[in-house]
């Protein structure tokens, strides 16, 4: 299907596939928030004193917000991106000042006993707008590198060095302008990320990696992408086998690449050597950090990925019970409202971070397959539509939205089935929580709005 098929008129311009998936996911989430309590304690799904009822209220608010977004003009977002970004930062600062601690994170602003908001969920939206705006000016049109204070260079030295060496390795010669262009992008992401980290909200901080993921589409060094995957791989394997064996392997691999792929190019020796030292250092250092810097509970959180029985009553408990709930759902599930583990509080946070296990228990493989297919469709649709955007702003925004949703999907579902460490991020549109639902709704409907006006943009 291509954009050109869509006929004129407002209704015809809206991507109803995205809206449809959104509606399905929201309703599925609401149903399962309602299901995930013991039957005696289950009130009407519209009763505002229950979580399902509150979610219903938030859903109505989000529908309203979505409708309002449809009535705006896409230029508004581009114009207001910096004020919005400033607002986002202000909210994050506010939460640091007056925020209250809920479940270990000091990331909530409590208005009254009924309404709590989590500004980090909105900060994602504002950061997305700002970054999309920044990326909409491509490298070759970007203004010349400005002067940066010295401390900034020191601070950004490692990533600068890596990017510079990437330039050299690719034989393109050092392009300082490009390095600075991406450095600025990192600053836009880094400031809110650091503020969120200050709230001790690890999960929400990690989400900012999703922005970096989106940046690759717009020319960020792919080397960083491979480096990231490589480092993650090295880190995890260094926990299983002695780091010095890994380092030995790296040396052999580098020599192989240098001899057989780079044709013993003398020019490659310096950058190759640098990456070898970097990776080896990371391998040894990563293991050292794991052993000496991480708290024991953080260590086990990672180690349970390899061995879920490691700590069955402690940090493995959540994941174990979640896996047990999902596994006990079997092919077709126990039936809606007939779950046992997810309805009897055996799975913690079963209406927020572990809502996927409630679906898995009640609907079995059938249900989980449907949810995964819904997300795959949503994410691929977003990428396809983003690619078709004529406006660079809308395109960048589309990629950012897709990457944020992808990251949440990956971390959330991965946690419930024991494939990702439990960092605690919500499943978009499905998990309980007004702030996150509103944040995701803003992201998605802003893109739907931008997409709907795609044809108005002159090529």
């Amino acid at each position, binding site marked *: 299907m291509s954009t050109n098929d869509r006929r004129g008129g407002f209704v015809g311009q809206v991507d109803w596939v995205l809206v449809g998936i959104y509606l399905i996911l929201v309703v599925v989430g609401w149903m399962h928030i309602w299901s995930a309590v013991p039957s005696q304690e289950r009130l009407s799904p519209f009763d505002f004193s229950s979580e399902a009822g509150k979610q219903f209220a938030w859903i109505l608010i989000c529908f309203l917000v979505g409708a309002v977004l449809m009535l705006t003009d896409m230029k508004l977002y581009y114009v207001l991106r910096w004020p919005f970004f400033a607002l986002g930062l202000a909210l994050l600062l506010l939460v640091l000042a007056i925020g209250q601690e809920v479940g270990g994170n000091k990331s909530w602003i409590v208005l009254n006993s009924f309404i709590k908001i989590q500004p980090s969920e909105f900060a994602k939206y504002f950061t997305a707008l700002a970054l999309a705006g920044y990326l909409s000016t491509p490298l070759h049109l970007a203004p010349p590198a400005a002067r940066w204070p010295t401390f900034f260079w020191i601070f950004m030295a490692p990533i600068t060095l890596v990017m510079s060496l990437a330039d050299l390795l690719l034989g393109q010669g050092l392009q300082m302008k490009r390095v600075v262009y991406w450095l600025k992008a990192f600053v836009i992401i880094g400031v809110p990320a650091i503020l969120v980290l200050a709230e001790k909200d690890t999960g929400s901080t990690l989400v900012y990696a999703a922005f970096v993921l989106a940046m690759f589409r717009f020319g960020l060094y792919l080397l960083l992408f491979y480096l990231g995957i490589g480092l993650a791989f090295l880190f995890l394997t260094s926990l299983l086998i002695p780091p010095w064996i890994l380092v030995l392997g790296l040396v052999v691999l580098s020599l192989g690449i240098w001899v057989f792929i780079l044709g013993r190019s003398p020019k490659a020796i310096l950058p190759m050597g640098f990456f070898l030292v970097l990776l080896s250092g990371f391998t040894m250092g990563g293991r050292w950090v794991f052993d000496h810097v991480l708290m024991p509970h953080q260590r086990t959180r990672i180690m349970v990925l390899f061995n879920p029985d490691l700590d069955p009553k402690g940090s493995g408990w959540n994941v174990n019970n979640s896996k047990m709930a999902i596994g006990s759902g079997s092919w077709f599930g126990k039936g809606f409202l007939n779950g046992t583990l997810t309805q009897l*509080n055996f799975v913690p946070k079963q209406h927020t971070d572990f809502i996927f296990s409630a679906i898995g228990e009640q609907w079995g*493989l059938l249900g989980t397959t449907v949810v995964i297919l819904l997300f795959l469709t949503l994410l691929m649709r977003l*990428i396809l539509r983003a690619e078709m955007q004529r406006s660079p702003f809308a395109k960048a925004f589309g990629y950012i939205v897709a990457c944020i949703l992808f990251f949440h999907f990956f971390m959330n579902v991965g946690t419930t089935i024991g494939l990702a460490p439990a960092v605690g991020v919500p499943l978009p549109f499905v998990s309980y929580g007004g702030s996150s639902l509103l944040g995701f709704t803003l992201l998605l409907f802003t893109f739907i709005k931008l997409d709907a006006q795609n044809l108005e943009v002159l090529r």
Partner: protein
Amino acid sequence: MENRQRIYLVLIVLVGLIFWVRLFFLQGLDDRFKLAADTYSIRRLVNQPLRGNIFDRNGKVLATNDYAFDLMVIPLETKEMDTLALATLTEVPIEEMRNAWKKVNKNIEKKRRYKRQPQPLIRDLSQKSIAAFQEKMYRFPGLYVEKRSVRRYPEPFAAHALGYAREADAAVLEKDAYYQPGDYVGVAGIERAYEPYLRGVKGVRKIYVDVRNNEKGSFMDGLYDTLPVPGADLTSTLDIELQKYGEQLMQGKRGAIVAIEPATGEILVLVSSPSFDPNWMVGRNLRQHYGKLILDPAKPMLNRAVMDGYPPGSTFKVMNAMLGLQAGVINPATVVPCGGGFRISSAHTVGCHGHPNADLRFSITTSCNAYYCHVFNELTKTNASARQAYTAWYLGAQRFGFGTKLGTDIPEAKTGLLPSPEYYDRVHGQGKWRGLTIISLGIGQGELKANALQIANLATIIANRGYFISPHLGKALNGKPLPDSLFKRNYTRIDTAHFQIAWEGMYGAVHKPGGTAKIARLDSIAVYGKTGTAQNPHGKDHSVFMAFAPSTSPKIAIGVLVENGGFGATYAAPIASLLMEKYLTDTITRPELEERLLQTRLE
């Protein structure tokens, strides 16, 4: 740059695929989780059945169930509270209350209990304390009262026969998987012997629980739930009125009484003195009472009626007479000159008390030592070897119940001691002993040990002229008589006719001049008795007596053993006599004798 779009699509599909494969294994192929999930969230609750009642032979209630009230605590829900006020309110000593709290906290510290798990603070509070507490309950959050069924014994008698039921301890729990902590289990006497019938069948209820163990509805709407089946009511053979009288007569004396209905083997009375109130073994003051009972040098917990016992003394002579007659070494007309004793060797003589020369009948009446040394000597030298001869006697005595448990249903029953040939081989060396070495067996002394049950059983055999039915305490379950096959008829293989002489001799002992038990005589009823004196190297001899009455189809056979009571006639015989009179006529014609016995303190 456009081809970078593909990276995103590949990444998304790849992650989706990995997740789906993982879910396919987790949900589709792996069965482990389905089972684990159920054991995780389903709890089996046990409904305790009411334990069966125990009645005496006339339908009087001996053991039943009552309610006890425990003060329970959920530590998580408690707030700072006034321990002193709580102690005053419930009438629990403040020290005990403080210790109870310490114990609760220790249970949590040691992770034996969770903070939200209820645990008992004080057990078995009185109804009055509970009422007072419940009025002020709002002041003590986290505390509540739980009702629980406990055993009560309305008659404070027959502790040893009834035994007691109490909460299963670690040893029981380890041995028998049926019992769970908190279950009642019979640990002695009837309560133990008939435990499988008395305990009933537990009911089971399956419920869903949440992660905090709170109930969240029943499993499959109660499809697999079962109701508890109450335990069967047991009618015992005891006559509690007679039992009570026996215990009163034994007050201040150590010893035992056993009375048996000869025709059935039913035990009418089983007294072990000193005794205690069976209620002491249940309830709040158990620990205190138990400690006292365990430390008492008189050993009230010991069931003296069935313990290993003491030499049976002269009562044993009647059996030797029967074995002698059956073997043909004597006949009723055999006269053995007494002459003040039986000479074993020039240096040793078994003394006697100097009476006219006796025939068999008179030897029983007068309990002649010389006569029975002669009988035993004859019995053990008839065969080629002394060992063979002794073995024959040994087997004969075993058929009279000595050295056996008689097939009784009393769990504490001991065999006593009837020395086997091997025993003497060990003591004296093989081939180095003969009848004369162990001549004291002839008169019921020496290594022999027998208890009141075995002595009463000997009287039963004579009353039955040659057999006994295993003496027992159980009579009927839920009104249905226990099957006869449970208590078998044991034959002595002595000709019935031989017992005539025993009857006559024992009649003479009570009713004829020269008799040793004239004190046991009843005016209206023929009493057949035999005294005995168990030699006691540690102190005064033990007084032994056995008897049965009346002459036509004897209704009661009795064995009495009074420790340090001297001659059989002194205490054992009058006690037996009073009991028989009470049982057969329901009156006491000799109040001064009764009074003397009630007043006697031998401790």
